[in-house]
């Protein structure tokens, strides 16, 4: 009888790992695919800005002020004669870094606090959950305005503020998922094998709760980009001469520009719209692809 197992030939089925399955589902999601391509283009634009931009984005040429699009300046020039296209290309750097860094900061905080709260429970959970409640009950935009006002508007401060205000949602997701995964038998069997808590959290729990976190982070990038644009529009964000899509829109606060010089505000507005909607499509695709219930 002991040989029965030896004779069981290995059935040759193509490997269907969760990753390959998720990847296939993602590819079927047309909008997500289109979104990914657009996001990739924006990322490349940001990375290679110095090579792509036709002009120095900060070069002021009063003689060119308010000029409409022309062959020399495809999207025209702004109030002080800077090339709009170049500023647009450089602006993508600001938007993307706000999105990426702010989200990285808050996902890290949320992961750590959520895991600790969910795994250890007790008073730790109590403290973290109340902190989540507290931060979630602040009016976020007001708070951001106040803090940025106090710290002074800059790219770094925006990232910091968004990073430290965004974590409660992630912490809440992570805590809930951790509570569920902690009850899984493989966690018990790890404990029965003598694994220390740190290893159980890192190897057993974290990898099994990442899907909803990744999805949330994707939407978070889009949201951070929007908030940065809003702050810069209000003059509380990235300060000139550094260009950002938001502070380019700032110029459009004047009615005459709004009516007669669309090249100054339509392109940055379009970029904000395209970037956020693409990222949200990617998030949608990821949500469908990573949903374990569809497995």
């Amino acid at each position, binding site marked *: 009888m*002991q040989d*029965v197992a030896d004779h069981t030939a290995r059935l040759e089925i193509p490997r269907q790992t969760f990753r390959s399955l998720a990847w296939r589902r993602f590819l079927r999601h047309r909008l997500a695919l289109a979104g990914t391509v657009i996001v990739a283009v924006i990322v490349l634009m940001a990375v290679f800005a110095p090579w792509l931009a036709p002009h120095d984005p900060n070069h002021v040429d009063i003689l060119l002020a308010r000029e409409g699009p022309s062959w020399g300046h495809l999207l025209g020039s702004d109030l002080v004669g800077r090339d709009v296209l170049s500023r647009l290309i450089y602006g993508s750097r600001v938007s993307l870094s706000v999105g990426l860094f702010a989200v990285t900061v808050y996902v890290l905080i949320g992961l750590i606090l959520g895991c600790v709260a969910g795994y250890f429970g007790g008073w730790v959970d109590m403290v973290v959950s109340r902190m989540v409640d507290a931060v979630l009950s602040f009016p976020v935009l007001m708070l951001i305005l106040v803090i940025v006002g106090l710290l002074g508007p800059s790219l770094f401060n925006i990232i910091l503020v968004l990073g430290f205000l965004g974590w409660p949602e992630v912490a809440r997701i992570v805590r809930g998922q951790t509570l569920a995964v902690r009850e899984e*038998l493989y966690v018990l*069997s*790890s404990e029965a094998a003598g*694994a*220390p808590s740190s290893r159980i959290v890192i*190897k057993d729990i974290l990898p099994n709760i990442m899907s909803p976190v990744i999805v949330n982070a994707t939407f978070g990038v889009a949201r951070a980009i929007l908030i940065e644009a809003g702050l810069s529009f209000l003059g509380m964000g990235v300060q000139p001469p550094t260009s950002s899509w938001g502070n380019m829109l700032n110029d459009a606060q004047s009615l005459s520009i709004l009516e007669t010089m669309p090249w100054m505000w339509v392109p940055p507005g379009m970029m904000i719209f395209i970037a956020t909607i693409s990222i949200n499509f990617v998030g949608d695709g990821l949500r469908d692809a990573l949903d374990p219930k569809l497995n």
Partner: protein
Amino acid sequence: MSDLVNEEKPVLSLRGLTTHFKTDLGVVKAVDGLDLDLPAGATLGIVGESGCGKSTVGLSIMKLIPEPPGRIAGGEIIFEGEDLTKLSNREMRSVRGNKISMIFQEPMTSLNPVLRIGETLSEVIRAHQKIPRKAAWEKSIEALDQVRIPSARVRINDYPHEMSGGMRQRVMIALAICCNPTLIIADEPTTALDVTIQAQILFLLGRIKKTLGTSIILITHDLGVIAENTEKVAVMYAGRLVEYADTATLFDNPLHPYTQGLVLTVPRLGARKEKKSRLNVIPGLVPNLLGLGPGCHFADRCTQVMEVCRNLKPEICIHHEKHLVRCWRYA
């Protein structure tokens, strides 16, 4: 097989082990003053209905009772001369998986789905031995070979979902034996598997016991499994030990009315011809552990109940050499 069993030197002794669970309705005594010895090199079967506390015994020995609501409320767990109840968490971690390991009922969900089985195995080995990653990987392959997983060198790269239930249970056994434990606690290791696979897994456990000299506690509700794979049996009812004997003795001469009932419930081929067209059952249900009476917990279902049974708890008595029973009929 029996020459390996050392009656004089128990590897594990439980003395008055008591495990409580706090609920909103009161304290449940899931295990209530359990005394039990496991001779070195033997397989001890713990048998009983659902909810009689047999799994709680296993988890208590590992000190893995979820706390709260559970708690080891009293007693001693003496393993290799040391009382496990007195060990700190850290000390206990070096016992788990290393000297005592555990196999669970559900092989389908006992393995982390995102790790290759090789990673899971090496993690366990490296938790107990300071050896490099590569050496741990080689040891893992060895362990898979020992549980007779064909082409272990290839399958070590599999994810759990790429394996069948029987294969996964083999991996679980590999996990249990990879650090050469003295004791393996197998909690219903074959319940979730179909019968042919069950036989293979039990055969494997028996072989491991022989080659590695491991002692095994086999927790099950299946008397057939007990009969063929154990040297000693403990019958539990409502958190207490009701009968303990050599396996052969117990099946030849069950003393406790509950054990007699259990032995009778085992369906036999050909029973129909003997004009017994129905399966035997023990009437009634396991009592609610929250509302136990003053007497014998089995009294309400017992066919041989006496007056005293309803009023006083029976103590363990020695029927004859090494056959213990908790029943007023033998007191």
